[in-house]
C-alpha cells in the first residue's frame, strides 16, 4: 500500500504562504470588487420598482431597436418578480451579474485585443481558455473560497473568472476577422496603432464582441446563482435554502425569477447586436 500523498497539506501550506505574503493584494482585490458591486447594487436597489420598471422598459425599447414586444415582456416579467416579493433579491443578483460582467469585460476585452495582435500570447491563452472551459463551474468556487473565504466577493471572483473566456475569445476573433484590406486602409493612410485599434479594429469587431458580451452575461448569471453556495447573496441563495428545506414553493418562485432575469438579459443583449 502506498501511503496517502500529502497533496492537501501541501496546498494548505501554499495558501498560507500566499495569504501571508500577498495578503495586501487580496485585500486590494476585495476592496475593488466590493466597490464595484456596491455601486451597482446601490443604484439598482435604491430606485423603487414602480419607477425602475418603466425606466428599464424604455431602455430596453431603445437599445433593442424599438422592439415593443420585448419591452412589454420585460415589464410583465419584472412586475411578476415584484409581486412575488423577490424584488430586492433579484436586484442583488442583477447587481452581481452586472458588476461581474463589467469586471470580466474590463479584463477580457484588453486580453482579447492583446491576443489578436500577438500570436504567441494567443496560443498560450487559447490553451488556458480551453482548459478553463472543460472544467465544471463548481470547480471555480474552490480557489475563490480559499483566497477570499465566504460572501459576495469570492462569489464575484468565481463569476468573473467563469464569465471571462467568451469576452477574450470573441474580442480576439472579432479583430482577427476584419478583412486585411481594411487594416491596410488604416496603415496606408498613416494611422498609428492606437488609431487603427479605435477607428478600424474595435468598430469592425463590435458585433462579434457584443456576442461575447451576451455570452459573458449569461455565464455570469448562471455562476452568480451557483455562487450562493459560497455565500453570495441574491436569488441563488433563496433557491439553495428552498432546496435545503425542501420548500418547493420558495425554491420554485426564486427559480422563476432567475429564468425571467435570464430571458430579459439574453434578449436585450442579443437585440443590441442586431
Amino acid at each position, binding site marked *: 500500500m502506498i501511503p496517502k500523498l500529502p497533496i492537501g497539506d501541501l496546498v494548505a501550506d501554499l495558501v498560507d504562504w500566499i495569504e501571508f505574503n500577498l495578503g495586501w493584494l487580496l485585500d486590494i482585490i476585495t476592496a475593488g470588487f466590493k466597490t464595484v458591486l456596491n455601486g451597482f447594487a446601490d443604484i439598482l436597489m435604491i430606485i423603487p420598482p414602480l419607477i425602475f420598471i418603466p425606466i428599464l422598459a424604455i431602455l430596453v425599447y431603445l437599445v433593442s431597436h424599438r422592439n415593443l414586444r420585448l419591452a412589454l415582456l420585460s415589464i410583465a416579467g419584472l412586475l411578476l418578480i415584484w409581486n412575488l416579493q423577490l424584488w430586492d433579491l433579484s436586484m442583488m443578483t442583477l447587481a452581481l451579474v452586472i458588476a461581474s460582467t463589467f469586471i470580466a469585460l474590463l479584463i477580457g476585452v484588453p486580453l482579447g485585443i492583446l491576443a489578436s495582435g500577438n500570436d504567441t500570447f494567443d496560443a498560450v491563452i487559447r490553451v488556458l481558455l480551453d482548459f478553463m472551459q472543460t472544467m465544471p463551474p463548481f470547480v471555480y468556487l474552490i480557489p475563490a473560497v480559499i483566497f477570499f473565504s465566504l460572501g459576495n466577493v469570492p462569489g464575484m471572483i468565481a463569476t468573473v473568472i467563469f464569465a471571462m473566456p467568451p469576452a477574450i475569445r470573441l474580442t480576439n476573433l472579432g479583430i482577427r476577422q476584419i478583412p486585411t484590406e481594411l487594416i491596410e486602409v488604416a496603415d496606408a493612410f498613416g494611422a498609428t496603432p492606437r488609431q487603427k485599434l479605435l477607428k478600424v479594429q474595435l468598430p*469592425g469587431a463590435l458585433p462579434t464582441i457584443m456576442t461575447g458580451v451576451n455570452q459573458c452575461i449569461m455565464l455570469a448569471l448562471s455562476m452568480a446563482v451557483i455562487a450562493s453556495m459560497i455565500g453570495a447573496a441574491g436569488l441563488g441563495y433563496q433557491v439553495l435554502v428552498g432546496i435545503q428545506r425542501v420548500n418547493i414553493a420558495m425554491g420554485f418562485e426564486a427559480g422563476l425569477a432567475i429564468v425571467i432575469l435570464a430571458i430579459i438579459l439574453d434578449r436585450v443583449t442579443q437585440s443590441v447586436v442586431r
Partner: protein
Amino acid sequence: MDFEEEPEVIIKVNQLFKIFGNDPKRGVEHLRAGRTKQEIFEKTSLIVGLDDVSFEVMKGETFVLMGLSGCGKSTLLRSLNRLIHPTAGEIIIGGRDIVGMNDDEIREFRRDNIGMVFQNFALLPHRSILDNVAFGLEIQGMPLAERHEKSRAALELVGLSGYETSMPDQLSGGMKQRVGLARALAGDAEILLMDEAFSALDPLIRRDMQDELIDLQERLNKTVIFVTHDLDEALKIGNRIALMMDGKIIQVGTAEEILMNPENEYVERFVADVDMTKVLTAKDIMMKADPVIYCKSGPHHAARLMKEFGISSLFVVSQHRILRGIVMLEDVVEAVKHDKKTLEETTIQDIPFVQLDTPISEIIPVIADSRYPLPVLDEDARLKGMIMRSSVLLALARKEPETNDS
C-alpha cells in the same frame, strides 16, 4: 497631360528587391548570382517578390504596372508606401528615401503624400460615406467641420454628392469605388496608388470608371501608379506602362512603344491580341499636313504649290492654322482660268475631320466615306496633321502578330 515643360521625377526606384521568407537577404544573393525565381524557391523556399526593379515616375503621370497574376505588381505598389518593406534597394519619393524611414516618419509620410485605392473598395462598414471619405483627414487630426467640408468637396469631385449619409452597403460596386477614390483624393496627396482598383467591377462600369479617372487626371494632375493585369485598361489610362514578369520589369514605355517595339517574346505574346484599331489614335498615324494655304491667298498661289509638291488637294487655313476647308486641283485650275482673286468660292467647307485622340476604329468609317484627305485637329480646330487612306492601312500592317503559337 502637358509634357512640353521639363518633366520632374517624383518617384525614383533603384535596384529594388523584395524576398518573402526567412533570412531574405540570401535570396538577393541568389538572384545576383543569376538564379531564377523558380530555382530559388525550389532550393530555399524563399519567394521572390521583386527582382532588381528600377524605374522613374514623372510628376503628373499615370504610370501603370502590368503583368500576369503573381508577377509582383502589388508587391511593388505596396513597397512605394512601405506597406511592404523592401529587402534591398532604394525608393526616393519627392527627394526622400522611403526605405530607411522609421515607423513615425513613414506614417507621417503616408498621411501627407499618398492616397490609396483598393481592389475591393475597403470601405469601413460602420461608417457613413462622408466619414469614410474623411478617414484619412481624421487620421491627420483635422477638426470635424473642416474634414467634412473637404470630404464633401471630394465626393462632389467623383459625382457622389447627396450620398453623404448613406452607408457603404447601400451603394453599388461602382459607387463604392468612387467613394474609395474620393477618400484617396480628400487628403490632397500628390501620389495615388491604385491596386486593381477597377478589376472587381462589371465591364461597363469599369469602363466608366476608367473614363472618370482619365477625366479626373486632366483636372487634378496627380501622380497615379495604377496596377492592373488587363492590357486594354493599361493602354487606355497609362501615360507609360511597365510590364512585369517574375518580379522584374521587362519593359517600360508608352502604349505605342510597347505595342510597336515589344522588347522580347513575353511582351510580344502579351500584346498579341490587342486590337490595334482601338489603341492607335489619329496622332499616331497622321502625316504632316504641309504645305497648307492661307485663306486670303489666291488660286495662282495654290496652283503653284500643288504643282511644286505634286499634290491634288490643299488644306485652307486661317491664322494659327485654324482649318477653313480644302481646295481640290480641278477647282483651282477652273479658278485660275476665270482669273478669280481669292480662294473663297473654290474652298470646300465642312469637310469631315477627326481629333488627335480619335482611335483608328473610329477613323476608318469616316475616311471610307470621304473623298478628301482627313484633317486632324486639336481642341481649338487647329490643323495638326492629316490622314490618308493609305496611312491607316500602313499602320495596321506594321504590327501584325507574325506567329500565333498559343
